């Protein structure tokens, strides 16, 4: 634990990536194998289940610090991180623990099953004994969500340096389902073990947004275009008559999309498809809002399956006949994918079952070829009509890379929809935005029953402003607060912002009756007063007419 806390302290004491990677590398070279596995797990968001709920944690921490609970809560809103707040308010201790990181984590796993009394005693003992950083790390391990400015990518890079194993290969090994409590460092990192790979997805290749003009990409004949679908990026794996569906967040979501069970026996074993899970109500592509009703549901009811069925819009194939084909050019991978589609279609036709082609929820994301960049731009303008977010441009000879890389793939989104709205509520941010009001709620005008104009909340946004603008607005909010509701403050309606968003749909879950997709602040309209902001009717006017 000492070394791990020291590592976190070092990572915390620098703003430079090279120094962070070096600190992690040094740690991986020194730490014992068990601690290494747990460190990898913790830094790749594989924390053990939370042994104590945060309500109890907050109550006990305020008791241990001898302050009223409300004062602890206020401090937490300002500090912006629960573990950090606990480490700060409890009186200083200067001991450190010789117990290893692994021992602590095993204790925490065991703690889950203990009585509240035992849990409390365990926490008190460690809080009162450990020094600030160890106490912070200890509590952070309990609360989970170990975000400390080290991405999984940085961690993988450091591990690659320490083990001299290629970074991309390591990224692959660390994917998928593994249990830090049972796997050894040897098995996880060093060994080649075929059977472990059964469910493993490949690291996703991610595109950057295009910079400047699409035409700057050179000869249009070198490029394919596809629509950029707005669903859940996923990999669908078929191996050994088993199906695995992974989301981009490395979450195994097979059970959430039972529709895809139909792939087994139709798509051959040794196939990995990269595509987008899309809602497909009434045989047409739905909105992301439709998909929201499926995300996060543990139990998918037959009614929901019927109301919002999903399809896989496939655009790439990473493994074929058991071979990793990511290095083959995109154009060849697409040929294989298209052949697969043809086979699936024929299979399902020839089979003497009632299955028709439409029953297999596998759709192809068509690649399009254009003769000029102008033609391509025209297709992009059709994006909303196609229910896409814009276009993806993929170089025909591009391999399938690991992570976010520039050069071969670009996303070229449609310009967002925009509306001018009034700032009405603000909340403090977290992490590097702690103690700063950076999370805002925006409202539009609406005529109420008495025919008076009132502001109706329609979206929350917390990105799009510069640090300097956030600071200015933060100072203004502190001086213009009307009411406080815990961490939230209502403010005098005064500031107008141009809010941009990707999509829009009617929604019963929203007070305004409208859901916007990925709203963010495009501009601070200091030139406008609140009466010049848009109305809810204006917003409704942006909903595509066929909905």
């Amino acid at each position, binding site marked *: 634990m000492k070394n791990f806390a020291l590592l976190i302290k070092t990572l915390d004491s620098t703003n430079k990536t090279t120094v962070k990677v070096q600190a992690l590398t040094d740690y991986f070279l020194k730490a014992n194998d068990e601690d290494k596995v747990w460190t990898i797990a913790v830094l790749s968001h594989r924390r053990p289940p939370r042994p104590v709920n945060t309500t109890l944690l907050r109550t006990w921490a305020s008791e241990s610090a001898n302050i009223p609970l409300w004062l602890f809560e206020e401090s937490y809103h300002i500090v912006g991180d629960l573990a950090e707040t606990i480490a*700060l308010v409890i009186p200083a201790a200067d001991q450190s623990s010789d117990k290893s990181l692994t021992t602590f984590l095993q204790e925490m796993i065991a703690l889950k099953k203990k009585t509240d009394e035992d849990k409390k005693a365990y926490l008190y003992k460690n809080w009162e004994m450990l020094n600030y950083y160890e106490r912070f790390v200890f509590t952070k391990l309990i609360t989970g969500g170990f975000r400390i400015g080290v991405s999984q990518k940085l961690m993988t890079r450091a591990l690659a340096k320490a083990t001299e194993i290629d970074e991309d290969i390591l990224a692959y090994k660390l994917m998928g389902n593994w249990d830090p409590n049972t796997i050894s460092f040897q098995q996880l990192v060093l060994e080649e073990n075929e059977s472990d790979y059964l469910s493993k997805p490949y690291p996703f290749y991610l595109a950057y947004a295009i910079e400047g003009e699409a035409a700057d990409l050179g000869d249009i004949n070198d490029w394919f275009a596809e629509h950029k679908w707005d669903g859940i990026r996923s990999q669908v794996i078929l191996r050994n008559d088993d199906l695995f569906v992974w989301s981009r967040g490395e979450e195994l979501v097979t059970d959430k999309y039972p529709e895809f069970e139909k792939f087994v026996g139709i798509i051959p074993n040794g196939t990995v498809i990269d595509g987008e899970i899309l809602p497909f109500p009434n045989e047409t592509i739905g909105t992301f809002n439709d998909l929201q009703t499926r995300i996060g549901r543990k139990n998918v009811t037959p009614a929901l399956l019927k109301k919002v069925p999903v399809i896989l819009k496939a655009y790439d194939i990473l493994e074929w006949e058991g071979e990793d084909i990511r290095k083959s050019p995109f154009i060849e991978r697409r040929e294989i994918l298209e052949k697969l589609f043809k086979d699936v279609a024929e299979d399902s036709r020839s089979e003497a079952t009632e299955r028709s082609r439409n029953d297999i929820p596998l759709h192809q994301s068509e690649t399009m070829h254009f003769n000029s960049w102008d033609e391509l731009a025209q297709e992009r303008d059709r994006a909303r009509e196609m229910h896409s977010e814009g276009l993806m441009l993929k170089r025909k000879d591009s391999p399938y890379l690991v992570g976010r890389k520039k050069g071969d793939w670009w996303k070229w989104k449609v310009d967002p929809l925009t509306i001018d709205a009034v700032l009405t509520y603000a909340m403090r941010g977290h992490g590097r935005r*702690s103690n*700063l009001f950076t999370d805002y709620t925006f409202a539009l005008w609406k005529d109420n029953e008495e025919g008076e104009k009132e502001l109706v909340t329609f979206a929350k946004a917390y990105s799009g402003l510069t640090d*300097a603008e956030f*600071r*200015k607005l933060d100072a203004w909010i502190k001086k213009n607060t009307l009411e406080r509701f815990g961490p939230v403050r209502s403010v005098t309606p005064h500031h107008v912002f141009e809010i941009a968003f990707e999509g829009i749909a009617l929604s019963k879950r929203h007070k305004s009756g409208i859901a916007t997709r990925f709203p963010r602040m495009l501009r601070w309209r200091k030139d406008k007063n609140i009466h010049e902001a848009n109305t809810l009717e204006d917003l409704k006017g942006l909903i595509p007419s066929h909905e």
Partner: protein
Amino acid sequence: MKTPLLQFTSNGIYCKKAQVYLDPWKPVDHAIISHGHADHSRYGHKKYITHHRNVPIILHRLGEINVTGKEWGETFIINNVTFSLHPAGHIIGSSQIRVEHKGEVWVFTGDYKTENDGISTPYEPIKCDTFITECTFGLPAFKWTPQAEVLENINNWWAENKAEGKTSILFGYSLGKAQRLLKYLNTDIGEIYTHGAIENMTEVLRPLVDFPKTTLITKETKKEQLLGNIVLAPPSAHGSTWIRKMVPYVTASASGWMTFRGARRRRAIDKGFVLSDHCDWTGLLQSIEATGAEKVICTHGYADIFSKYLREQGYDARTEATQYGEEETETALASKSTAAV
């Protein structure tokens, strides 16, 4: 109801009986000034009264003004109201202002800290009936480590950077923090370079305190000269081209706000040292207790939260809005333009 001895008006804290303002934020005739930070000593008053150690500071900052310097504890009577200044320990020349009329005593702290920093006259608790206190760090999350330990860490940090052939850049307010740091930097490690704003203020204070030698960074200063040495700069210089020319360097900030990990990360500073010229949570509570005051008025900082806690502890506590605190807030830091070198 009788008029309170001190009132909170749109111009500032006002003693009607004496027709005097304490740290007013709008131009007035008579002002008693607690200390030299810009949010407490503003332009445009006709007469200033302050501690004599603050006189050179405000003359430097405000130019030609009509100012009278007082000793600690020296009483001066205006319209039967007795005023005196008492050390606040915040920065050099910083005072609490004691106001007495017919046996009723009010104390206004301005800004203060309880730890003796070795360059400001140490804080003394003053018995009073009503205590007007700042509470910049009025949350239990703020707990200061003794200065000696923090300063040792700062010197160690400098030595480590030197060993790596890098320039150390340390940010601190040009009045107060910069001199406190300067006083204790270990000149065996290397030389101390300064930003213009800090050099000028330090020059003003040299007759009052013995400081190590500093060298002003000018256009002629080569970045090779700086390698291994330390540069003292105001927070507003962070991210400026002035700093960028000094590569390779490592940055650090010395401030109470460095308690929060997020605050350091947000500013993109490498290292944060928690060193404040204000009271921490315990310091605030202990000072209030030591004054024996029954009434407490909380001004700038986490005033709502802090006064609620005081009420729970049995004090008659409330908050009053002032225009103090800008000196130390992020907004003020961000908006202050980088001083020319």
